[in-house]
């Protein structure tokens, strides 16, 4: 059985259920639980649910410290960029401690942040920064594209014994979808085939999964069968599922909201160029954001972002199809 809820509600459902299940789970961050009738505060009390000042370094660092001392904190950071003022705490503290202590300490914590709010938030709030964090040993990175994955990946993130960066997508917050009833945990490092197909593989993350699915639908009407894979976690990255798909389709298009050289697309392309080279019948094609900050004004914002048309064009080119006139 399942229920239909928005992506944002799915995130909260997982946090709430894990807090119910395990009293070591803490939840805190800015501009939350400021009024006594906040539902989390009411359910779990001020020991476990707290509002913080605008102090990301302290917030993430405190999650690290509380984790070392036996708790399982979830720190709400809002926009992905806000992690940048505390990037050392994200990549160079908690993620190293288990290693440096040869396992004497561990740091189970979840950092929740949203990204890619491309609807007029302009240069400093719209970034797709996940690529920066995907190659950090000791750190895991989840990027759900559906309400079900949003819930299931959060559940797993909270139960994981390592620091996890959980990136939700701002444009997906209100998207509704089915979420399985009861306990729902999506394993890390297991990609999901969001649509099966035989002619070409698309790998996409977050919001661009939907762009890819739309393109696949359009192409299906022309008889082109596209498989769409969502890695769901980019660290660990499920390369095997991608390789297996490319082994069947022989063609790969990557879609990514990040700029080309900051993208998951580039990393996937590299893996396939090394491990799946013999399967490839055509060049890999990357549909990413253009190398630009994101502008405030809509036409300029749109111009640099991947969209369905760009994906369709890339698929046509990769398969050597004649473009359909617009």
């Amino acid at each position, binding site marked *: 059985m399942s229920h239909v809820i928005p992506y944002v509600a799915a995130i909260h459902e997982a946090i709430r259920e894990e807090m119910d299940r395990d009293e070591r789970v803490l939840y805190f961050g800015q501009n939350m639980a400021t009024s006594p009738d906040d539902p989390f505060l009411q359910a779990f009390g001020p020991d476990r649910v707290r509002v913080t000042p605008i102090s990301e370094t302290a917030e993430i660092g405190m999650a690290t410290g509380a984790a070392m001392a036996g708790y399982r904190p979830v720190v709400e950071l809002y926009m992905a960029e806000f992690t940048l*003022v505390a990037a050392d705490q994200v990549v160079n503290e908690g993620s190293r401690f288990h290693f440096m202590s040869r396992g004497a300490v561990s740091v189970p914590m979840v950092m929740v942040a949203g990204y890619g709010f491309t609807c007029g938030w302009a240069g400093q709030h719209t970034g797709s920064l996940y690529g920066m964090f995907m190659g950090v040993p000791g750190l895991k990175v989840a990027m759900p594209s559906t309400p079900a994955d949003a819930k299931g990946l959060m559940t797993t993130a909270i139960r994981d014994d390592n620091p996890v960066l959980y990136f939700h997508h701002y444009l997906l917050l209100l998207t509704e979808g089915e979420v399985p009833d009861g306990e729902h945990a999506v394993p890390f490092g297991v990609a999901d085939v969001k649509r099966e197909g035989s002619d070409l593989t698309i790998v996409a993350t977050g919001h661009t999964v939907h762009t890819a699915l739309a393109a696949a639908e359009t192409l299906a009407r022309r008889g082109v069968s596209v498989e769409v894979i969502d890695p769901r976690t980019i660290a660990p990255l499920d390369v095997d599922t991608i390789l297996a798909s490319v082994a069947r389709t022989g063609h790969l298009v990557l879609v990514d909201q990040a700029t080309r050289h900051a993208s998951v697309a580039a990393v996937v392309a590299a893996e396939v160029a090394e491990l799946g080279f013999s399967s490839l019948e055509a060049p890999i094609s990357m549909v990413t954001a253009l190398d630009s900050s994101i502008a405030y004004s809509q036409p300029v914002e749109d111009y640099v972002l991947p969209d369905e048309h760009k994906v369709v064009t890339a698929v046509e080119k990769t398969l050597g199809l004649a473009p359909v006139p617009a």
Partner: protein
Amino acid sequence: MVVGETVDGGGRDALGPERLVWMYTQMYRIRQFEERVKSTFTEHPGTIRGHTHLADGAEASIVGCIATLAPGDQVLSSYRCHGYPIALGSDTKLMMAEIYGKATGLCGGLGGSMHLYDPARGFLGGSGIVGQHLPHAAGAAWAAQIRRRGEVVVCFFGDGASKQGAFHESLNIASLWKLPVVYVMENNRYNASTRSDQEDANAAAGEPLSTKATAYSMEGTTVDGGDPVAVHATMVEALARARAGEGPTLVESLVYRLSAHGNLIAPPGVPLHYPEHEAIAIFGNRAEYESALRGDPVPRFRHRLVTDGVLGASDADALEAAAREEIDESQRFALDSRLPEPDSGLAYVYA
């Protein structure tokens, strides 16, 4: 064009009647501008995107500060940045067009509400990441110190920003190096929907936030930001100290924003608008909000000028009408302007 060349604060002049009227005019213009931005959400839905933050309630503080500046001085601020350039002389047509995302905007639609820039008028921009412009101000002040022309940098930021590490690091260096910078904390008692006493150890202990200056062996003072003359007097002292090489000041200016933190945050499709102020929406404290409304600095200053005989009531009406007309015109200009070319950003990624 030298940065700050045309700053128009008139800061070297005494605060005679003419300057007082100038101040009221700027306050009124800012308010008109902000109200027009706000009403755009209902009157022209979809025109403004993303997140806007209004200065309504802070006009006295803004103008009291800017009125102390002189050519060559510079200003930096947070994302709540509409008021400063208006007082510095920026063209409200270009500003409104920017907020409407038009090609004719101050930044061609690339910046938007949170990122206005007008360096010729000394406005070095609004940064959207809390607290991160405080070091920029210290850097600009270092430049001013080296130039040795007696120029000063004024940096506006919120009470919430003073909990960011960048605040601490910047104020220590500014004091240590005796930089010509004045840090103006606009304490509007809220960081979005968090009350100061929920996030600030000084506020929780009932102490003013200007106490923080002690940690930097720096001058710190708290002023009624609803009174432009009091703000002006405080700033005159702070600027004199800065220009004389005696170092920076932390000015805590007590204000109250009269709108919510910003417009609703939502993905496309959901109509944006300004919700009720957090005092009401989150804390159910209508009394606090209404008392702030009664203290609204714009009518308060008009009343004082009229009562003191500095400004005749009909002159006040006339200047207000002129400001309204200006903003009408700015809005028309912004509405009529075209959107930028889709590829117009690419030319500005690298200098």
